[in-house]
């Protein structure tokens, strides 16, 4: 910019003020939530000093332990299934000339993002409740299946991005050196793709872990995950125990998302 200029081209009246206010508002509610998790008293209204009491209570609560374990198991299976399926689908839909059905595949894979969650949730309720009656099976399989489906587009995204930015010459070199298709894939493509696959898995894991709506409608009795357990608790008179659970959950998500950013940023 020219020296000696006093007129700032970029400034707009009150914009910085509104922006800083917005950032303040984004973090104020979370700060309040975190603060009350450390309240020594059992009321959500009165502050009675700092303590870790509610973290211990939450950690010792059997229903919370079960829900947390169930959340982790579902997220693990769903993210694994979604990542494997998404990796295969990404390989099938990139680095090719357009072929018949390609657009159809894109639309199909991204469909879970287009429909409101509550609509998918009741549609799954309808179908799964009938399957439950027919087969008598009411295990976690339904939740894993539902979660796998809506995790696929999230896992697909970073894997596909990675594939599209990948250098083809290394695979060509492998083929020139008489590698079979499978050898070229497992020794060249897959290692190069690994950061994308890890990022896709982590994204799918967080998405599954966070889900409230579909889980709430698909779960059978006694199959609460951590989010649906919290949703149930919010109906009652709450204690800071729920804040403590929320803070632990929050911390875990932030760590995972930060890790995701670093994995995803690594250069090809």
């Amino acid at each position, binding site marked *: 910019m020219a020296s000696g200029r006093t007129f700032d081209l970029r400034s707009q009246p009150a914009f910085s003020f509104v922006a800083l206010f917005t950032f303040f508002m984004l973090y104020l509610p979370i700060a309040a939530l975190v603060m009350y998790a450390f309240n020594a008293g059992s009321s959500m209204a009165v502050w009675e000093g700092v303590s870790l009491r509610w973290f211990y209570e939450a950690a010792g609560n059997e229903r919370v332990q079960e829900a947390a374990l169930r959340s982790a198991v579902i997220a693990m299976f769903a993210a694994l299934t979604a990542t494997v399926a998404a990796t295969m689908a990404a390989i099938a839909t990139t680095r090719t000339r357009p072929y018949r059905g390609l657009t159809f595949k894109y639309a199909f894979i991204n469909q879970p993002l287009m429909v409101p969650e509550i609509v998918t949730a009741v549609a799954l*309720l309808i179908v799964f409740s009938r399957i439950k009656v027919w087969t008598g099976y009411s295990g976690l399989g339904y939740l894993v299946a539902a979660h*796998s489906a809506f995790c696929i587009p999230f896992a697909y995204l970073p894997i596909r991005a990675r594939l599209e930015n990948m250098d083809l010459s290394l695979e060509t070199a492998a083929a020139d050196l008489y590698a079979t298709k499978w050898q070229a894939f497992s020794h060249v493509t897959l290692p190069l793709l690994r950061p994308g696959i890890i990022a896709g898995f982590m994204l799918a894991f967080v998405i599954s872990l966070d889900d409230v709506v579909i889980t709430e409608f698909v779960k059978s009795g006694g199959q609460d995950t951590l989010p649906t357990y919290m949703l149930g608790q919010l109906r009652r008179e709450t204690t800071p125990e729920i804040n403590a659970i929320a803070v632990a*959950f929050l911390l875990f998500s932030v760590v995972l998302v930060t890790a995701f950013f670093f994995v995803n940023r690594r250069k090809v």
Partner: protein
Amino acid sequence: MTSAAEIVTQVERDDVRARWLLSAPALLIIFFAAIGPLFVMLAYSVMVKGDYGDVRFGELSLDGWFSVLFQRDIFDDTIGLADAHLSIFWRSVKLSLITTLVTLALGFPTAYFIATRPPHTREVWVFLVTIPFWTNLLIRTFAMQEVIRNEGILNTLMIRLGVIDQPIQLMYTDAAILFGMVYVYLPLMVLPLYASMEKLDFRLVEAGYDLYATRLRVLWRIIIPLVRPGIVAGSILVFIPSLGAYVIPRVLGGGKSMMLGNLIELQFGAGRNWPLGAAISITLMAMVMLALLVYVRNAARSGAQHG
């Protein structure tokens, strides 16, 4: 003897077949646990409702669709508009529109602020917007409850300052839902706005000032038209999930202030009217598809302008 051309076609055909096999697991999972059930729901919407939920399988009826907008009087069987449903439809659309406008009013200056920071600090500001975005929706809703409940920060602060004597009852009102939706969906407005502002060419802004435009005029005639794709994308990204919101109105609106998502749940729960619930769900989906269509057409048009 096969010619070279035939071999090439054969190889290409094999390649496409391999690609279908590879994508089969993803397509099957999504068909079984996402798309297929939507078609089953469509079928359920035209069946007779069961006495204790579910439907009477195979008995067809359009009652579900009829009750989306109309009701029969229990006494004289006259047909009237279902006011309860209409008011929930109206509330959903109204609150979603207001949410979109408020997030735009807050998000536009915020995105502009980020885009005009020095390049190395921009990433930090963007990251600050991304963190709440990745935080669990339920936790953010619950956090908003901490702010607006009767003993929450907002009321405590205003009483301390002497603005009010009695706490204002915000929980379980439309205002509470609005607070929650603005808070939860704000990052969805800021991120696409920022993406288009980052590319803003400030030489055009400079040209405006050289021609004696005021700041407001530059904003209105140069900046806003240039970032219009971001405004449209952000608005759609906020409007669509607002319309289908379920958790926020359930937690902050309670039973008093329902939105479409809660009306749907009611039909599958205490209402025991699955065909009606299915019909409302399909209506909601159609509304969302319509909004998406507007977006796609708009994106295609602005793409054509630049191309």
